[in-house]
């Protein structure tokens, strides 16, 4: 009953100043619309840019680094009493690149519940022989199925069928940049030479485009078996073990753990690609700052209209108080006005925000660097709508707070005497 009465008074005041009210509400609508569109678009872009690197990067990579032993024989001797030993120019001994015991390690990892998937990899330097010249390149020997599952390998094979890499012996998926330099077509046979000088012929079954030119110019893919053959290694040879985790944030801790347990190098994605995370964070931060700034500006709009309304309605407020409305009632009336502007403007903003996001989603965005993307990327996450709603209610409440308090403190005697 009482709430209904206060609400009806609020509505009457609102309707009496509907133009200004509308302007204030449009301010809120605009800021919420932009807030949602901006965040959805930014998040979409972030996801795309992250996808460019992070989706295709292992959360943890295990490998064997060829490095000089950190423990030299003389150190068996213990600390010297009357001197100090200097050993300079230590060289690593001829060690193999592969991970010892890779099969056992892979098995262990597959049973670790924190690990989402494991993909082996063999990386080797090669030269693509093009007529009289040699182009430097890198061949990644991959397990086609695991690589597709974990790193969307399939999406980046822009010509040819990715599965041929697994099914055709001695086949290769060439980086698009490399293929262009070599003037190679699908189905051609190319010749490569290994670091040890051996030559090898491979059939081109596809082209690969990552979106990063530097990578596409050098990298190519073969199956693990083919790569092992190229290198003349056994079928257990692996140079890297890549894995994706259930929770990416656990990568640094788990990398340390694996380093200890398996005694091999382990690098986590955060360490290897810290710049990407920073970029993502900064972009997100900027969009939030812009969005919230818009909301604050809208808040000032509401603050203004309420102040004006209170100034104009001094007499009405005085009369309400003289006829028995308490300061609290008057306060509630003006808070209700502020909130209804916020809620109404905010709801429209949510709708328009969704509309604008959907519109951005339709705008064509074709770039040779990103073969899988056809329109501008957006992220339709609910969370932006929730945050926007909370913020619009919160800012309008704040904007209404001071004017409402001012109204509730109006002394009717001063107003009535002033006439």
């Amino acid at each position, binding site marked *: 009953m*009482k709430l209904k*009465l206060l609400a009806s*008074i609020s509505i009457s005041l609102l309707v009496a100043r509907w133009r200004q009210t509308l302007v204030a509400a449009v301010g809120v609508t605009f800021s919420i619309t932009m807030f949602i569109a901006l965040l959805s678009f930014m998040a979409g872009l972030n996801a795309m840019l992250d996808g460019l690197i992070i989706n295709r990067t292992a959360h943890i990579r295990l490998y064997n680094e060829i490095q000089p032993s950190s423990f030299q024989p003389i150190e068996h001797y213990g600390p010297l009493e009357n001197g100090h030993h200097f050993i300079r120019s230590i060289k690593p001994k001829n060690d193999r690149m592969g991970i010892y015991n890779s099969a056992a390690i892979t098995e262990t990892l597959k049973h670790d519940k924190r690990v989402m998937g494991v993909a082996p990899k063999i990386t080797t330097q090669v030269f693509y022989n093009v007529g009289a010249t040699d182009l430097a390149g890198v061949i990644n020997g991959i397990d086609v199925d695991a690589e597709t599952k974990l790193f969307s390998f399939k999406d980046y094979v822009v010509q040819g069928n990715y599965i041929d890499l697994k099914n055709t012996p001695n086949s290769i998926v060439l980086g698009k940049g490399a293929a262009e330099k070599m003037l190679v077509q699908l189905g051609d046979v190319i010749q490569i030479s290994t670091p040890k000088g051996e030559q090898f012929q491979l059939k081109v079954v596809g082209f690969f485009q990552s979106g990063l030119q530097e990578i596409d110019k050098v990298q190519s893919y073969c199956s693990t078996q083919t790569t092992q053959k190229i290198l003349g290694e056994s079928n257990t040879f692996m140079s890297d073990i890549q894995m994706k985790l259930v929770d990416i944030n656990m990568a640094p801790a788990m990398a340390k753990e694996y380093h200890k347990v398996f005694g091999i190098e382990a690098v986590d994605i955060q360490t290897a690609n810290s710049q990407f995370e920073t970029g993502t964070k900064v972009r997100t931060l900027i969009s939030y700052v812009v969005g919230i700034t818009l909301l604050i500006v809208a808040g000032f709009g509401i603050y203004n209209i309420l102040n004006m309304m209170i100034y104009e309605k001094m007499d009405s407020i005085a009369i309400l108080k*003289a*006829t*028995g409305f308490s300061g609290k*009632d008057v306060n509630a009336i003006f808070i209700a006005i502020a909130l209804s502007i916020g809620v109404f403007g905010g709801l429209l903003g949510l709708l328009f925000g969704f509309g604008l996001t959907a519109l951005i989603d339709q705008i064509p965005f074709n770039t040779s660097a990103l073969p899988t993307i056809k329109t501008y990327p957006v992220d339709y996450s609910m969370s932006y709508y929730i945050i926007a709603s909370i913020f619009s209610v919160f800012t309008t409440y704040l904007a209404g707070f001071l004017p409402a308090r001012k109204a509730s403190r109006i002394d009717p005697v001063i107003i*009535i005497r002033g*006439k």
Partner: protein
Amino acid sequence: MGKAILEAKGISKFFHDPNTIKVLDGISFTLEKGEFVSITGKSGCGKSTLLYILSTMDTDYEGDLFIDGQSMRNRKEKELARVRNAQIGFVFQFHYLLNEFNVLRNVMLPGLKLGVLTEEEIEHAAINKLKILGIENEALKMPNQLSGGQKQRVAIARALINDPLIIMGDEPTGNLDKKNSEIVFDIFQELATNYQQSLLIVTHDQEFAARTKRIIEMEDGRIIN
């Protein structure tokens, strides 16, 4: 002697701006049920100031005020608002209707605030009050469509809506012509005789004052008669 519904006990009031002056000096009097009393005095003698205190809108005074036997000192703002709502009807020199609402709604508002009756009952009561004041035909007009005298009658109807113990007026006819003043006075008279309504009206109009049951005459913040 009837029952005392309003009692002022030694009410004094100071203004401190620009320098301290005593505007009211130990005002004491009682008002009984059904009494029609006018307050007169020279301009600036403190009549309005006294009325604001008696109507509980001004709480910055010395002395004590009893309405219906209850002291109004040290009451919370909300409780005083309730007293104004339920027990006091105020009529100002300027009519002070809410322009956003029509006449009927203006009259109903204090009743809705009181919240004792349902909306239909309040509407019914409001129409009754408008009838008493002879303006039931204006019920659905907006305030700015009324003449000054009609507005003042609407304000009186609003003051009556909760059947208050007392109606206070600060020069309610001060802004009206002779004819309309006459009408308003007759209405007050009728309320006092037919409905035993207590009234306390500040006026400059000697003729008006002379026709009330009792005149309180003030000078320099004191009651002299």
